[in-house]
């Protein structure tokens, strides 16, 4: 049963399996284990970013294609849902329509970019996506009539998903059973289904072919696989999943703006998550996203205290200031590309 759910791709390391189980349990019972608005928000973000990082890993780790437009697809999904919710009013129909529309646009755009630039050279793709994604981000902030510009869009979600909606009176384990909880579980189960779906994809014959393309495109072509077709399909698939993750974010935080969905910072975050977690394994995305979001939320507090403790010394307080956390993650990123290209997951698997 579990084997079927995981598509035969087991963690293959007792420690890794333990960590993954811990993350799954932690996320599944987050509202009860870690009560409080901030921790619930962190848990939902982890769910969303696991899907986003996993969809990016399909491209980076399994297909060997570097894209800098992943946040663009993420943003298209988020804006699709946000625009539908703000123009059609808070209803589930709006959510479904907006999500479907956003995903379709993201997939179509990915198809266009893929056919256009994957034909020539893989390195072209990285540069073209970087340029297109930046232009898209600027365009979104310019078209303020439609997208709200830099301020973004704030909207209402269906009442059943809000904190005012009560499912039952009283509490279970001291937690109110309200719409917010329902919303969390909507995010959680959607993320779980999407993740298992991606796991299914990478362990299918299609996924095997992607790995072949990654390892030796020339040979794959010679055997008779159309490399461009496989690369483009992977791009479209990963864009569609990223758009769905964007829709989840739009529903969860009830706000969509350039800073939360389209910025280059988020693109770099995803890159760090996938590389530190481990490229080429879906579990790497889980570990990477969890570590990263936890670090983003809690490491800064730790660094603030380190800054406080080293106040008397020269330079060091500047280096450990909480705003400089990306410096350390950037160094970790470079080191992990050199020394652990398989990331945390690769490490755990090799030690058994």
């Amino acid at each position, binding site marked *: 049963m579990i084997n079927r759910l995981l598509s035969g791709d087991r963690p293959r390391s007792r420690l890794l399996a333990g960590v993954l189980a811990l993350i799954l349990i932690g996320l599944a019972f987050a509202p009860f284990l870690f009560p409080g608005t901030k921790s619930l928000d962190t848990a939902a973000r982890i769910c969303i970013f696991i899907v986003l990082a996993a969809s990016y890993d399909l491209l*980076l780790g399994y297909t*060997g294609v*570097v894209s800098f437009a992943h946040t663009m697809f993420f943003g298209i999904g988020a804006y699709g849902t946000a625009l539908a919710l703000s123009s059609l009013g808070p209803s589930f129909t709006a959510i479904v329509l907006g999500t479907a529309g956003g995903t379709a646009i993201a997939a179509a755009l990915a198809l266009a970019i893929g056919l*256009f*630039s994957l*034909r*020539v050279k*893989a*390195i*072209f793709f*990285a*540069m*073209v996506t*970087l*340029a*297109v994604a*930046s*232009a898209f981000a*600027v*365009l979104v902030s*310019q*078209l303020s009539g439609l997208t709200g510009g830099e301020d973004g869009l704030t909207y209402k979600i269906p009442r059943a998903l809000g904190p005012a909606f009560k499912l039952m009176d009283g509490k279970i384990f001291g937690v109110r059973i309200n719409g917010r909880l329902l919303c969390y579980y909507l995010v959680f189960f959607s993320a779980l289904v999407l993740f298992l779906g991606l796991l299914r994809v990478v362990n299918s014959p299609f996924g095997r072919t992607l790995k072949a393309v990654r390892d030796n495109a020339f040979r794959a072509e010679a055997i008779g696989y159309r490399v461009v077709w496989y690369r483009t399909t992977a791009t479209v698939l990963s864009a569609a999943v990223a758009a769905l993750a964007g829709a989840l974010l739009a529903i969860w935080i009830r706000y969509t703006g350039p800073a939360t969905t389209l910025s*280059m910072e988020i693109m*770099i975050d995803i*890159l760090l998550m996938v*590389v530190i977690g481990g490229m080429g394994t879906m579990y790497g995305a889980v570990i990477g996203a969890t570590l990263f979001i936890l670090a983003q939320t809690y490491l800064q507090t730790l660094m603030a205290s380190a800054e406080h403790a080293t106040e008397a010394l020269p330079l060091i307080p*500047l*280096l450990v200031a909480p*705003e*400089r956390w*990306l*410096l350390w*993650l*950037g*160094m970790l*990123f*470079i080191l992990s*590309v*050199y020394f652990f*290209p398989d990331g945390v997951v690769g490490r755990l698997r090799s030690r058994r």
Partner: protein
Amino acid sequence: MSSTAIRPKLVAASPAERLKSAAPLLLAPVLAGLGFAAIGDGATWLTLTVAGLAMGLMIFIMASGLTVVFGLMDVINFGHGAFVSVGAFVGFTVLAWLAGWTQSPVVMLNLLAVFLAILASMAVTGGIGLMFERVIVAPVYGHHLKQILVTMGGLIVAQQLIHVIWGPDAIHLSRPPSLQGAVIFGEAAIEKYRLFAVAVGLVLFVGMRHVLRSTRIGLLVRAGVENGEMVEALGYRIRRLFLLVFMAGSALAGLGGVMWGLYQETITAHMGSEIMVLVFVVVIIGGLGSIEGCFIGALLVGLLSNYMAFLAPKVALVSTIALMVGVLMWRPQGLYPVVKAK
């Protein structure tokens, strides 16, 4: 041996073929003509054209290093933007030290201060380029995916270090008085600094062409682009050539950083990665590895951005992407593809 030796047959290129190879050269004048038709007002057009040329040539300064590095070493440096930012910040520091010279009304002192600032930032970015090549890029030669990731990591770290050294806020960088203001040319007002930028860019382009076409180093670089292994087999240390070109490319990025910083008059740690978008567009349009293509691409992007900023400000950046798409439809490898087999 049969006596029918195969003779080489020399055929002069037909006019159509010559036109085909020269066609990209016509693009910039054609674009300027179209811009004139769309704008209609001669004075405005002249101002915008000079602004476009200045912007294009500054982008060319930054992009030329990137494209030669790619052509010679097959390394695409996503951290190139970091050198631009570092160059701008070093230039700012030097100009602040030389405040007495930059404030004085004497033109020569002003220019000397700017010149020293440029020299200092080129030296610093060249030095950082040396370290970057040795520490970050050297272990991942021949591995594109890792190159992109590692140089991106280098960019993140460099930007954060700029924050540590110069603080997180944007810094105002004012031009010396002799580069402020505008000259009136007919009815068109043309900023002096833009003329200065055009002059620097043109001198650099001519100089680079000269180095690449008429010196021994340039010969080796061109041979290396064509076939690196053969150059090595002939006894030249291609690794040293790589390092030299990488440092030169980084120094050019530093120069571009100072010029761009003085143009914008505000510098941030992210300015490099922001301008990199246009730099990549230019490099793609020109064809990876080609200096001439890069030059034409930079002029096209500069002109188009300025015309569109006047005609339809909201879609200025999108129009350059459209230009890139159009060029790639016409020539999928860029205007002048240099790197063929890699």
